[in-house]
């Protein structure tokens, strides 16, 4: 933890980025906001701030979460700090035409109210720089369609914890097919009773066994999307 007084603006670029990695790790929101501003003032491109200071910092957080060194409440704090930095960068990124980090609409499907896992996924996605629109629980297909229209996401995430509600994922995907929009989006599914095979059977792009895998998978798809466009 940063116990001695540090003046961020007096640090060199390299030192500041290192410090921001530490501050993200420690979930220091205001410090991240300040660091982000300083780098921008020094003429850093918003995309460079995002990737080198924030995303890289969260990569370290993600790694230590995976390895059991960091715990959920701590990662939540880090993700919040990241979100604060993103808040500053988002309009600038759009204005400079930087590659999009990605936007996801996520919700628990109709008939199902389990949301602890979905919330974790949303939080980790935000932590990785994604824009997340959380539809909450008990979502009928119309809710997903409305959200798709309104928010134009890259990714649709669906969560289900009940064997009686998981077939509803297929209802959503089939409706997307009927409307001819299925292939415009990446569909990721998750929830404890699902598995790889089920994900395939309902026509999702991938099944994600946990939040970290969800982030990795989403990043992968975004990378492919950018490559296709490039």
């Amino acid at each position, binding site marked *: 933890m940063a116990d001695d007084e540090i003046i961020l603006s007096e640090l060199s670029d390299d030192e500041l980025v290192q410090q921001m990695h530490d501050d993200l790790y420690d979930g220091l929101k205001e410090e991240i906001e300040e660091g982000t501003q300083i780098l921008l003032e020094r003429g850093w491109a918003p995309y460079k701030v995002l990737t080198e200071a924030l995303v890289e910092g969260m990569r370290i957080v993600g790694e230590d*979460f995976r390895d*059991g060194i960091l*715990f*959920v*409440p701590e990662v939540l704090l880090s993700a919040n700090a990241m979100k604060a930095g993103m808040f500053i960068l988002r309009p600038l990124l759009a204005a400079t035409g930087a590659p999009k980090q990605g936007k996801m609409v996520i919700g628990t499907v109709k*008939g199902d*109210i389990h949301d*602890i*896992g979905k919330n*974790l996924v949303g939080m980790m996605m935000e932590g990785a720089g994604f824009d997340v629109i959380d539809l909450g629980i008990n979502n009928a297909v119309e809710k997903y369609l409305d959200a798709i229209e309104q928010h134009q996401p890259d990714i649709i995430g669906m969560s289900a914890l*009940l*064997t*009686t*509600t998981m*077939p*509803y994922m297929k*209802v959503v995907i089939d409706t997307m097919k009927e409307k001819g929009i299925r292939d415009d989006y990446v569909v990721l599914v998750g929830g*404890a*009773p699902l598995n790889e095979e089920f994900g395939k059977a309902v026509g999702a792009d991938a099944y994600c066994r*946990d*939040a970290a895998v969800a982030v990795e998978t989403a990043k992968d798809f975004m990378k492919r999307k950018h490559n296709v466009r490039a």
Partner: protein
Amino acid sequence: MNAPAVEVTETAHRRGGGRLGRKALRSVPIASFPTLVRQIPAYQMVPDEAVELIHQESLAILEEVGCEFRDDGAIALWKAAGADVRETRVRIDRALLMELVSKVPSEFTLNARNPERTVRVGGKNSIFVPMYGAPYVRDLDNNRRYGSLADLNNFHKLAYMAPALHSSSSVICEPMEIAVPKRHLHIIHSALKHSDKPFMGIVTSKERAEDTMAMAGIVFGDEFVRDNPVLVAITNCNSPLVWDATMIDAMRVYASHNQPLILAPFALCGASTSASAVGAVAQVNAEALAGVALTQLIRPGSPQIYGQFMVTVDMKTGAPMGGTPEAAQMMYLMGALARRYKLPWRTSGFHVGSKLNDAQAGYEANMLMHAAILAGANYIWHSAGWLEAGLTCGYSKFATDCEQLVGWYKYAGGLPFDDFKEAMAAIREVGPQGHFLGTQHTLEHFESAFFMPSIMDFNSYEQWKAEGAKDHDTRGREKARNMLADYEEPKLDEGIADGLKDLIARREEKLPDSVS
């Protein structure tokens, strides 16, 4: 528990007995133990003042924060009862709350289709109930796969055969091959066909709850199930402080038929409650009392089961844990509160996070069952099969749990003094240096004196090795396999059996094949 007289009268001139006779005597299946009447005191872990403090805090939560009831019918009931209702938020003052809670009977009879399996719940009476809700099974060949109707049938058979299980539960594992809209019919049918013990209702929609009641009506008579408990159903609060429409729908169906509901929030402590054992109990108590109170607005005096299913969250992943000391401590607190309210209460026994029937499972299960027993729980659920925080039901675990329950049944039944005099006489008979293995007292009592599990292995190393050096998990699966081979279906009146089949056929015609 006494074995009935055995027929070994092949030839008239022989006395019988001998090897065949003894074998028959020992292999007579014991169908079922009666209700466990606990003969040991309930243990209270904290002083009365602490219980009172939590109680007061729970009441304050319901008065100040209130609880959400996301259902128009429930809101209307609360308004009529005079609670402070703003949209779906209901603030309940303590006098109203406690008046409603006091209407719940402290004990009730839970009828089985075979009257010999009928049990009491509440007070000193406790029952053991197998698990519920597993999408997966760990099967007889030790593979993890989705559950099927054949698996569910098997678990109902095992539940029927296990003497210390007092219920067949219902959806022990999920029969995944059956279309969701029709699945509940086959779940209830399997429980009623393969066992004659009490069972559990379906709650995932109003329609499915009504189908459950219709099936119960065929077995027990429509008239009978209007007023007499024949099943128990679980409605979960969505912690923190939300009762939603699906659960309230089910509540209405069952409570209006006087069928008990379990109002016992399943809280992932640290995620859906504060990260404090006592804080979590104060919240869960408030949620449970609010649910109990609503049932009394639906049908005053209907039997209900208060309680909790509280697990701590693994802060590394957010996943539910099993067998933690705090989970045990919270049970003691809830037990003390239940006694304060004179309510029958539920907790969970052998629920674990382990993937396998291994050392982790053993430690976890034992930590929690010990607490459930000493805390004086009445409806001890998830007492057979539970693995992976409820995602999997294991055959080996099921068989082990059933066997261990016999031990816990005995433990909670207290220490018998009835042969104390004879035991003292045996000391005098043997004196210093001798041994007791051949005394009359030992001969008369050895079979019942000490718990004799069959899956646990106490053989010599060499013997164990000669028998294949099998680990516990393997022995558990073998036991399950053997039990299933010995299973005989309990009698079910033909008219009833046909009635159930007709109802299923009629409903299946109406119900769709997929969710929409």
